């Protein structure tokens, strides 16, 4: 945010969607799977603020129908979940990781096309390592990924594992450099 924006009381819109780097996850997954034996949990989701306008509901419905159409061919499922913070999750389940990335991108593109790209909060990919859940979160505003590893206990996270994950995949994946922006997402319905 520039000097003038600060002087005039802020930008008049939210940061838009950063250049799309969602697909970097596809190549990174190859490295995760082969080198680190971290497997996809077969699910990924997109989380956004649902707006109470008629066309938003319509755009969402269109996106869902589009996905349902392809879902049947690809042997994948789509669920909707509202969390306690008032955000909506579209959860995709598909054994094929590449399909997950493509489907998430479809939803994001639909919402952006409808002018609601600034409502997108994050895309989340779920992984498993020795029965333990790991997540990679894609921040649409910043166009970067960061690892998120919940630890047992109330809102605890395993920072050590997260930082090791960063070191392990930063060649393939654009990782958020500012660790203050590694915002957790609790109660991920994946």
């Amino acid at each position: 945010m520039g000097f003038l924006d600060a002087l005039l009381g802020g930008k008049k819109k939210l940061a838009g969607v950063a250049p799309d780097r969602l697909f970097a996850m596809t190549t990174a997954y190859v490295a995760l799977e082969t080198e680190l034996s971290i497997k996809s949990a077969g699910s990924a989701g997109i989380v956004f603020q649902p707006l109470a306008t008629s066309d938003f509901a319509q755009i969402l419905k269109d996106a869902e129908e589009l996905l349902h159409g392809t879902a049947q061919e690809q042997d994948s499922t789509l669920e909707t979940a509202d969390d306690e913070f008032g955000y909506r999750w579209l959860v995709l389940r598909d054994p094929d990781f590449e399909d997950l990335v493509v489907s998430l991108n479809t939803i994001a593109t639909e919402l952006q096309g409808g002018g609601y790209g600034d409502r997108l909060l994050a895309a989340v990919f779920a992984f498993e390592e020795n029965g333990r859940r790991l997540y990679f979160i894609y921040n649409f505003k910043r166009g970067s990924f960061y690892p998120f590893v919940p630890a047992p206990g109330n809102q605890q996270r395993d920072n050590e594992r997260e930082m090791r994950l960063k070191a392990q995949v930063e060649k393939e994946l654009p990782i958020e450099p500012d660790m203050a922006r590694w915002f957790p997402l609790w109660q991920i319905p994946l």
Partner: protein
Amino acid sequence: MATQKTSFGRDTGLQIRMLATMFFLGLLYVAFVGVLFAAGAGAITMVVVIGALTLAQIFLSDKLALRSMGAKEVSPEQAPGLHAMIERLCIQADLPKPRIAVADTDVPNAFAMGRSQKNAIVCATTGIMSRLSPAELEGVMAHELTHVKNRDVMIMTIVSFFASVASMIMQFAFFFGGDSDEGSPPVILILAVSFAVYALSFFLMLALSRYREFSADRGAALITGRPSALSSALMKISGAMERIPSRDLRQAEELNAFFIVPARAKGALRTLFATHPPMEKRIERLNELEAQLQRSGSAIAA
């Protein structure tokens, strides 16, 4: 996407008024500095001293404000819900996470402090957290985060710098005694100028503060996408929820005869002295935003 479509338009009028206010403040201060220089060494010393005080204020204000409110910083373990809510708002607003504090008082209030985005702290009272629904609280916290994003604390502190100089001169007029025989303006003139600067800057600063409140409301609507949640929160906080009557119309009819419209002082004077815009105005603006949002929606669908 080169041109991103957004749900809300710009508020150019507000920006112009803000800019004009800042211009007049600047003009006023430049003239004031001129007079101070003419007054000689004593005045310069005073500017330096108050400059140091302002710096101290910039660095200490957050701690002072927290202490005066009896607020304590809370960890994610102590207030998981509040932390999680603010984290999501920060992703949405593209801000680093501020520190979070809670003040144990029943007064419904919230504020943001700190000189920069990295040093920011937002505080909510237990009163506001218990009264508001999650969506309403989210609106209020988004309003405070917008203050952080717009660097309002810094801007208002800087702007108040010369107003403090003027008020100090009025209090310590004796600093200027003595050397008025060397062709510098007499003490009484400096006093008069200081008084004028103080009075004028006082009202200009209040105006600026009100404009920035409008900006923060707007920013909150932008971040949450729910202008009506914030206006509902404002209504609850101001105790104005009664304006949406919950009483059955048939029952109210019988009581109507006893209602008296309260005679209030004319609004203009009250408005001039307020740091915040009147609640009705803020709610009105938020309603306009909601209308814009709904309209832009149907326009896209059409």
